[in-house]
């Protein structure tokens, strides 16, 4: 039902094919958080995966020891901005899942500060997600989720939970924080799964 708004014209020339529908390029890095930025010291940081079979935890050094990868990826925020070819460093979820036994198909990611977001397990494995500590060549700033955040760049960026603290597996999909407050349960930017 799209129609032309009088007087509006494209000022950006050719649209970059790496931009999902409804997205615009940014070069800075906007910050979106629902509340205050929690302070988390890497010395106290712990990452826990809890399943129907028990829990497994890693401290800062133990998680790094699983093997840190360099990643170059585009990120897409539901508020219509996309950042291209951003360098990150982090540990792939695949390495973490080598120690995890579960029949569950979904996880709820939990953050320091209380944020939650739900993700299907298949969207986390096979090189699709990381626990990331660095972006743009520097340790992650607290307002961008430091010391560590989940990185699931093929989904809208609210799925890449800042200040990640752990994952709890679930037999069925349940809504996390933004998913209860207006955002889509899955969040594929190429399908524009933004809102309820």
């Amino acid at each position, binding site marked *: 039902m799209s129609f032309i708004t009088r007087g*509006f014209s494209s000022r950006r020339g050719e649209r970059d094919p790496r931009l999902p529908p409804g997205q615009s390029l940014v070069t800075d890095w906007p910050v979106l958080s629902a509340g205050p930025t929690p302070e988390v010291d890497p010395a106290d940081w712990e990452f826990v995966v809890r399943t129907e079979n028990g829990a497994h935890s890693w401290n800062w050094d133990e998680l790094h020891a699983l093997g840190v990868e360099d990643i170059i990826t585009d990120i897409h925020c539901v508020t219509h901005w996309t950042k291209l070819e951003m360098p990150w460093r982090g540990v792939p979820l695949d390495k973490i899942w080598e120690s995890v036994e579960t029949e569950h198909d979904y996880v709820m990611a939990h953050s320091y500060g209380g944020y939650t977001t739900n993700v299907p397990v298949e969207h986390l494995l096979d090189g699709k997600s990381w626990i990331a500590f660095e972006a743009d060549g520097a340790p992650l700033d607290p307002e961008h989720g430091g010391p560590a955040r989940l990185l699931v760049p093929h989904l809208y960026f609210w799925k890449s939970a800042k200040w990640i603290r752990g994952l709890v597996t679930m037999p069925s999909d349940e809504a996390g924080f933004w998913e209860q407050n207006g955002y889509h349960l899955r969040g594929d930017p190429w399908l524009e799964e933004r809102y309820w």
Partner: protein
Amino acid sequence: MTSRRPATWHVATVVDSRNETPTARRIELDVPTWPGNDAGSHVDVRLTAPDGYQATRSYSIGSAGEGTRIVLAVDEVPEGEVSPFLVHELRAGDQLELHGPLGAFFVWTPPPPAPGETPRPVQLIAGGSGVVPLYAMAAAHAESGDATQFRLLYSVRTPEDVFFRDELTALTVAEPALRLDIVYTRRAPPDWPTPPARVTRDRLQAAALPAASRPRVYVCGPTPFVEAVAGWLIDAGHRPGDVRTERFGGS
């Protein structure tokens, strides 16, 4: 959770567009299919060019309630793609597309009557154009007649940059009254008691409801402003879950 209103695409017609500040425009839209919106929610505005090019941006709504008229107040982002068009080109009679209402978290709705329970006061803290959703909350509060105590701390560059000046002033004498504290950061009115300066930890402490009164706090503004204010609030004893934030721009 608030009542869920269906977010869908709407066609909006500009009813009025006028200067709000030297850099911002107040745009009133008629949206016949609008389901109403809670105070503090936002909307996606989509513009389409003759060649099919589209650009979409999110804007807070400066109005609330059940009507089919909504108000946006758009500050121009220099070198921006959408806001300069909305500020300089858009005029009465033009049409654009909206998707909304959006957001069920950074909203305020009148608390349901709970016998024997003291309602929690509300502290609003705005930086610049971040006042738009907070003004909608303050107006909705006055409209509801709800007795909850409301305060707004508003950081703004100069007197000319104040959004909704007349409306905010009217709310300070409405019943129930909004307590309004403006902090001018670059230039204050001639008779102003304090010289222009940014909001600091001390000024926040002096002008905001104390943590002991357990206010619900809504903070909206540029990222550095919100980061600083939210950090001071936590240091002052406010619980993180009581502080809701909305940020714009990069860090």
